[in-house]
């Protein structure tokens, strides 16, 4: 076999094992041995070059923009197709409210805890401004139903349910929990501290009164307990946001009874929360 023949074998079969005749030629031919060694080194080095490289992100961005401009790309279709029937209209509304109800329930639990704290550290000073707005504006529907709240045993029929400063300890906690968990109800008995339905004509007035109380609260109402202070204020912000959303919805649709009820609950809980915050601040001072 000649050098030209060895090269022909390399061209045809690459670097795979050479036939016997070619190997015999290599024994006596340094040139062909060096050629084989060099070609092998080149192939080994080539395999170290990455077969894949990460392209810059801008390539896809530019490409997809051009494809969209040419109308080749259309909106991505859903990968999974739901076979369930279309959800009723109110499910979407309920979904919107769901997390807010959870937050509201949390605020209600907070109010209960505030009440428990008040039970252990009773405040002597009443909060007439807060108690006055605790009863929400009464709608025609509520008037016609005339539901009654559970009256504490030790309280007189004229004692307001939400008057933080005047109720006995344990009944106040029970009343706060009852109101937080129940839909808005008509309170037949009134006192000097609880406004009558005529004194509060609308939710707007209730909310405005609560806002006034909120602004009047000292900036350090919760004293030195910064963590509690921050957490209560954060929950108050959550409530305020929810109240604002309800009010916005009611503006669009004044007949939305469900939103009205949610707003009612929120205002009640805000009143309770403000009560708890003021009591906590007074007890610290």
């Amino acid at each position, binding site marked *: 076999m000649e050098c030209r023949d060895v090269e022909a074998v390399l061209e045809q079969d690459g670097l795979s094992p050479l036939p016997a005749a070619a190997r015999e030629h290599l024994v006596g031919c340094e040139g062909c041995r060096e050629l084989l060694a060099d070609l092998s080194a*080149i192939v080994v080095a080539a395999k170290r070059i990455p077969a*894949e490289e*990460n392209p810059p992100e801008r390539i896809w961005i530019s490409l997809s923009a051009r494809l969209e401009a040419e109308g*080749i790309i259309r909106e991505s279709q859903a990968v999974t197709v739901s076979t369930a029937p279309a959800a009723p209209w109110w499910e979407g509304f309920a979904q919107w409210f769901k*997390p807010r109800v959870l937050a509201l329930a949390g605020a209600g639990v907070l109010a209960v805890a505030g009440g428990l704290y008040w039970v252990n550290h009773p405040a002597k000073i009443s909060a007439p401004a807060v108690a006055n707005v605790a009863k929400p504006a009464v709608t025609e529907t509520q008037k016609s139903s005339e539901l009654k709240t559970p009256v504490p045993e030790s309280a007189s029929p004229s004692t307001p349910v939400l008057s933080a400063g005047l109720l006995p300890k344990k009944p106040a906690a029970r009343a706060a929990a009852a109101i937080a968990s129940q839909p808005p109800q008509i309170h037949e008995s009134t006192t000097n501290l609880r406004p009558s339905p005529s004194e509060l004509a609308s939710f707007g007035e209730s909310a405005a009164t609560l806002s006034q109380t909120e602004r009047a609260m000292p900036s350090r109402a919760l004293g030195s307990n910064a963590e509690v202070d921050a*957490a209560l204020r954060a929950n108050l912000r959550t409530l305020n946001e929810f109240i604002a959303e309800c009010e916005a919805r009611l503006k669009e649709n004044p007949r939305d009874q469900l939103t009205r009820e949610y707003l009612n609950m929120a205002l009640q809980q805000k009143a309770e929360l403000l009560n708890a915050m003021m009591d906590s601040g007074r007890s610290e001072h």
Partner: protein
Amino acid sequence: MCSSTSVLGTTLRGTRRIASTGGAAIGQLARPRPTEPVAWTEAEAIRRAQGGDSAAFEFLYQLHGRRVYALCLRMVGNPADAEDLMQEAFLQLFRKIATFRGESAFSTWLHRMTVNVVLMRLRKKSLPTDSLEETLEPDAENSGPKRDVGAPDLRLSGAVDRVNLERSIEKLPPGYRTVFVLHDVQGYEHNEIAEIIGCSVGNSKSQLHKARTRLRELLQEALREQARQERQSAKTQTGSQG
């Protein structure tokens, strides 16, 4: 801290957790998730892409983009041109995807388009003396690089580093370069390369051998140049000392 306050603290943490969970739930409901991976096969993605599904296009791009970009980069030697070529290749592919019938593998079809795009670009840039056709078609009389019988060959063993090799690859004629990159860098077999560049298997093997042999010459030239520079710098140092 009194027990009531600790109860309050616990309740507050719970309230924050409830609020944040609710907020997170809303976030997940409201925001779309365009980058969520999908469990498609290539065939399904092609079918969806033929219907204009943008996610399917992106799926195919992610599946093949790295190899296409690497091919373009090895062929032209600079990232800017490689990006342009890659984009052009995919643009052509997606414009014509409706015509893909599956006669060949999708990757083969894609690489064929890529090679064509690259060679067209190189053809526009090439000098008149560089004949692309000559390098793609075997010629019995001009069968590639000749071995200098008289001149001593420099041994390359141990001297073939990646940088020198990549520089030498850039100096190869486009036809040689294409086959070498497809076979020795990206690992395609000769039958696949034949389908990509539209030639016979024998031609692919021939081009590859010529590419390797030419690379050997280029690397030897680089070694000689390096040795010459080292000798010159040594002379300069000796002259300055003397």
